[in-house]
């Protein structure tokens, strides 16, 4: 350990854990203390993530060894550019969802705030950990919290969707365990860096079994990432979840993408010897199928939450297919797309509820929630007899503008970052090697453009219906904080567009490091200078 700054690496896990534990201790005695703790923790996570983002740009990969044991024996946390990027996304989305939730939704059921903190802890842990088994443990922390979040607010639809969600994720976790234990049985290690170093020396007769184990592990990741045909659980669950819960759940599918990126590129990158590129075709084809399914779902859905769920699938499919091409520049573009789509979909999930609030359907759902958990503040929340005197009220105008921004981002049209992201994936695909562009790459390009068209059509149809054709019977009452949290995410997308140059350089550097993991391996496997017991 070389000072306090190294200890920052574990802070994204420890801060929400302590905050969540303290919230449970405080309980219902003081809501103000719980709120203050939540605000402190989520704001601290944003600051920490930005500091770590700065640290990750240094040439050395930062390692945090728990108890200062060497990576082969102990638990390690690893910080590189990809990790820092994911931490930042989770922190920003968490902060926005928290601001949105404290306006009303956190009252819809018990223990919202501790669950929210544990959710963030699981996410951050999954991004930071350097070995497969701790990845499993943090997946479980994250999922256990997400079960609570998905069921938050109760009601028939949520419990029914939640039941499916829990069963499917439990089965995926069992597959994860089977995969991890097969890998351990063959390679004798669960540390990702050590595993990558040992990939080349695995005996030929054991290689098939090891690849089977990693394939099973991949199925577990891809279930989380909602690849077709493993992703049918996603739209109903996300549509049924309460708004802030859905926003934070939308980054959960990106954890699956993160795990695929990390493990697949580390173990089956260009330096993996005989196994190089294992499963790449499947990722590409699966991604294409997911884009197709997601686009059809986008066109077929009648309500906004399901539309958002289908957009999550489209974005998952795009990412998987882009990663599956195995090109450094395409991966860089995919990381840019990941950033843009996490922010856009998070904003869209939050926005949906604000838009629906003025409509009868949304009001019905809210009424059910309030019936189940009589919060005693119905008068404040349901402006039943409000008179509307203006033709286009300011609130509706603001909602319209934010909705349009979301539509542009999701469809990938200029001038916002969604367009740049798709361009960053498409441009390197055209300069593919010397032997011309392969058929699958053409398919990917067509799929990307058509999925954008499908999103655009669906968003236009819904937008016309909501804002023009059937004007809301009453102006939705929206807290400033709620629209601020949506705007925060959209402003970040705009900032990503304005600062596209530096952002793209960062993504490309991250992609290069992922495709040539030499620094990662050396950093993790280096023997610590001071041994345990010698202080640190």
């Amino acid at each position, binding site marked *: 350990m070389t000072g306090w700054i190294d200890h920052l690496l574990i802070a994204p896990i420890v801060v929400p854990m302590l905050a969540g534990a303290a919230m449970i201790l405080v309980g219902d005695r003081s809501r103000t203390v719980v709120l203050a703790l939540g605000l402190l923790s989520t704001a601290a996570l944003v600051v920490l993530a930005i500091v770590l983002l700065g640290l990750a740009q240094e040439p050395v990969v930062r390692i945090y060894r728990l108890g200062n044991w060497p990576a082969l024996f102990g638990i390690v946390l690893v910080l590189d550019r990809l990790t820092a990027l994911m931490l930042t996304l989770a922190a920003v989305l968490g902060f926005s969802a928290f601001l949105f939730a404290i306006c009303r939704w956190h009252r819809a059921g018990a223990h919202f705030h501790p669950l929210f903190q544990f959710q963030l802890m699981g996410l951050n842990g999954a991004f930071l950990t350097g070995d497969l*088994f701790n990845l499993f*443990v943090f997946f*479980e922390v994250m*999922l*256990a919290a997400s*079960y609570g979040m998905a*069921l938050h607010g*109760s*009601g*028939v639809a949520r*419990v*029914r969707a*939640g*039941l*499916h969600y*829990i*069963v499917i994720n*439990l*089965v995926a*976790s*069992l597959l994860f*365990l*089977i995969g*991890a*234990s*097969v890998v*351990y*049985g063959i390679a004798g290690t*669960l540390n990702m860096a050590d595993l990558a170093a040992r990939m080349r020396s695995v005996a030929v007769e054991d290689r098939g079994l090891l690849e089977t184990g990693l394939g099973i592990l991949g199925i577990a990741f891809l279930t989380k990432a909602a690849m077709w045909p493993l992703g049918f659980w996603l739209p109903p669950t996300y549509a049924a979840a309460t708004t802030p819960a859905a926003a934070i759940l939308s980054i959960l599918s990106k954890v699956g993408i993160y795990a695929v990126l990390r493990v697949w590129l580390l173990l089956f990158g260009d330096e993996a010897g005989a196994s190089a590129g294992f499963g790449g075709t499947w990722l590409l084809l699966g991604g294409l199928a997911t884009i197709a399914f997601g686009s059809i779902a986008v066109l077929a859905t009648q309500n906004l939450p399901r539309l958002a769920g289908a957009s999550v699938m489209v974005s998952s499919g795009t990412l998987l297919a882009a990663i599956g091409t195995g090109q450094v520049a395409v991966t860089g573009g995919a990381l840019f797309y990941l950033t843009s789509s996490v922010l856009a979909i998070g904003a869209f999930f939050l926005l949906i509820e604000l838009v629906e609030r003025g409509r009868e359907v949304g009001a019905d759902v809210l009424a059910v929630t309030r019936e189940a958990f009589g919060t005693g503040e119905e008068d404040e929340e349901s402006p039943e007899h409000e008179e509307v005197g203006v033709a286009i009220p300011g609130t509706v105008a603001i909602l319209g503008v934010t909705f349009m921004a979301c539509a542009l981002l999701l469809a990938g049209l200029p001038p916002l970052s969604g367009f740049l992201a798709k361009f960053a994936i498409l441009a390197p695909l055209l300069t593919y090697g010397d032997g011309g562009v392969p058929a699958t790459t053409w398919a990917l390009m067509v799929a990307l453009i058509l999925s954008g068209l499908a999103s655009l059509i669906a968003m236009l149809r819904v937008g016309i219906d909501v804002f023009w054709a059937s004007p809301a019977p009453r102006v939705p009452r929206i807290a400033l904080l709620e629209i601020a949290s949506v705007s925060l995410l959209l402003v970040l997308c705009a900032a990503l567009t304005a600062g596209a140059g530096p952002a793209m350089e960062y993504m490309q550097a991250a992609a290069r490091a992922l495709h040539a993991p030499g620094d990662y391996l050396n950093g993790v496997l280096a023997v610590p200078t001071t041994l345990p017991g010698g202080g640190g």
Partner: protein
Amino acid sequence: MELVLSLGIGVLAGSGVWLLLRPRTFQVIIGLALLSYAVNLFIFSTGGLRSGSPAILEPGEVGTIAEYADPLPQALVLTAIVIGFATTALLLVVLLAARGLTGTDHVDGRERER
């Protein structure tokens, strides 16, 4: 010993998958429990099957790496059991809530039309 263990894992996993695909929530939860037993045994077996061998070799004592029981899979199994137990308990609560809210124990929350 290997044959008995692998047969045991196979029977547990097979029954688990069968029950998991049944339409009643109770069958699903029992199926998940059986599957998790199978997976726990499987993890345990990846360290190799030996009886009466120590997990930690003391310096100076007789014992070779050949007769040493790998402690890591055992630690993994412990973690997996704890997590599996907790999530199954949670699922049980959701199952009861679903039964109460929908009035049926079908996994889709409604009986199939005949």
